[in-house]
């Protein structure tokens, strides 16, 4: 049996990878994937806790998160395509029309 700590460590590593990717990368697609990575890192910790405490609510939460992530992916990818069509770039630093 793998102890809880291992799951949590892996979950933390995934989350930090997501955060760092979000902060460092410039490509919107990569940033988007980093967000998914963070979500999944959290999902992993939910599932691990649910298994550890024999509580179903954690697993149900994961389903919600996945649903939301799927919806977010649909909307987000649509926005990314729209941005690419108008700007012909996926570099976030150049998508700064609203910046003062």
């Amino acid at each position, binding site marked *: 049996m793998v102890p809880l700590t291992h799951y949590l460590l892996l979950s933390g590593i995934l989350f930090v990878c997501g955060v760092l990717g*979000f*902060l460092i990368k410039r490509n919107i697609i990569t940033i988007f994937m980093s967000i998914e990575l963070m979500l999944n890192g959290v999902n992993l910790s939910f599932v691990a806790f649910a298994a550890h405490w024999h509580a179903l609510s954690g697993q149900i939460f994961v389903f919600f998160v996945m649903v939301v992530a799927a919806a977010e992916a649909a909307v987000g990818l649509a926005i990314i395509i729209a941005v690419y069509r108008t700007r012909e770039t996926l570099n976030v630093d150049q998508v700064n029309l609203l910046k*003062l």
Partner: protein
Amino acid sequence: MTPNPYLWLIPVLPLAGAAINGFFGRQSSKRAISTVALSFCGAAFAMALWIALTFSSASAPYFLDLARWIRSGSFNVDFAFYLDQLSLVMLLVVTGVGFLIHIYSVGYMWDDDGYYRFMSYLNLFMFFMLTLVLAKNYLLMFIGWEGVGLASYLLIGFWFVKDSAASAGKKAFIVNRIGDFGFLIALFLIIKHFHSLDFTSVFQAVAPMAKETSGAGLLTAIGILLMVGAAGKSAQIPLYVWLPDAMEGPTPVSALIHAATMVTAGVYMVARSHVFFERAPMALMVVAIIGTLTALFAATIGIAQTDIKKVLAYSTVSQLGYMFMACGVAAFSAGVFHLMTHAFFKGLLFLAAGSVIHGVGGEQDMRKMGGLRVYMPWTFRTMTVATFAIAGFWPLAGFFSKDEILWKAYSSEYGSWVFWLLGVTTAFVTSFYMFRLWFMTFFGAYRGATARDGHGHNDHGHRHGHDELHESPWVMLGPLVVLAVLSVVGGWVGIGGRFEHFLAPVFQSGGAELAIEAADAASKTTEYLLMAASLVAAFLGFALSWTLYYLSPAVPARIAEGLGGLYRAVVNKYYVDELYALLFVKPVLDGSTEILWHGVDQGVIDATVDNSADSARHVSDNLRHMQSGNLRSYAGWVAAGGAIVIAYMIWMGVR
């Protein structure tokens, strides 16, 4: 008498005139403005005459409660008027002389652009002066008191584009505030100790109090503080400095406000408060000393002035000193008598001087006049009457009133031969400088340049087309003639103590009856001797100025040279203005500039605001860099914040 319910109309009529002219005068024709101003003022005079006809020395004082004003516990002050013999005399003087001066102003100010403004101010002045005179309590009197100060300020600074006029107005206002300070404290003392400001109830409360013969008590304090107020309004030492400067105003204003009426308000107030003074010999002594010194001091300054209006201004200060001398020896009716005759002949002197200034095209320097009796016969005649009257020649008005004062100064229980001697000396000096003015203006050869050169000068705002010396129009000469007649006959009401008897009911509570008795009992020979002495003094003054300014006009300059420093001191008014500037004005200016402006305002108040704003801007300048608009830097802040929270929770051991 039958109560007269229309008494309130007397002050209100001029107020209505002032309002109509003030609000609509700009659009109206000058004829309409004159009609309004003259009719409202004339109506007030007619009302006063009508009331006077039904009033005698036997009449009881009459009250008219108009409206409630202040009700605070047992302390009541109402809008109420009070008419007794004293206020009746003042009423007649103010409305009568005021009406004549209104008529005169029509001629004098006709060509001025601010004609409607002038007439409106004059009427406003009448309103406040009549309120002052008719008030039944000290507070209403104080309103009138401040109101005439306001009117005086407005009229001194009437030609406000002229810097000297504007600052003269301010000076008058500020110096009067010093006096009002004393007056107010006196009122506070009265409220504190008598719980009322109403004349009748205060005087009733004071009447049974004993004379403060040894040491100074409450009544002495009230008396002296009232005198401080009177010294401000009536231009007595040490607050007289504003009156000579007030001559910057138009000449009718000098005649009405700064000679005949407003400046006598202090005398009226002291006479009205005689109940306090009679019980405070020390306060009386202060009044007498101030009056006597002012009379002599101002008269000597008058000798060396060359501006015709300045001579008259110092003469006014000096004559007011006489009135206070009378009040100071508890001869209040003599003071009021002189107040009345002075209103006639000094009003006349100013109006005649105005006529002269008008005639020579605005010149006020007597050295540039001379020989005018040929060109202005009527001005000359009336001025002659006034000059002889103020010098105290029998049987003109000034003789009777001045003699009354000098006799009382000698014979009264508070009097002394010192007052009398200084008074007679003043009479001599008065006679000298008045005849000096008379000779310099009307005799000899005309010393001015052509009148045309003098045009647009100084006091005179006129731009009339006359080129040579000319007599004034009849609208100006008429009042002169009426006042000249009054200056002759005005003193006759005092023959045989009739005036004193008329006022006796007012001053009864004091020693008026006693004084009359004493006068009768005193040696008649002494009285006639003193009378002769003052006549001799007047004649000596005349003779001296006749010698110096008519027979040998070159001598005065040599005498002046011979006197050297003393002469310069007199010409420069004993440097009193400079002394006040050094003692009071400069410290205030410096203190305001250095401490209040640079220190408190710039150093504390401005610095607080400036520094807090500056520091806010510095902080914002730094914080601004956080808000770069870079999305990922925001995310970085969020992540950093989250990391800090987590680190904190781990550190504190939160589950």
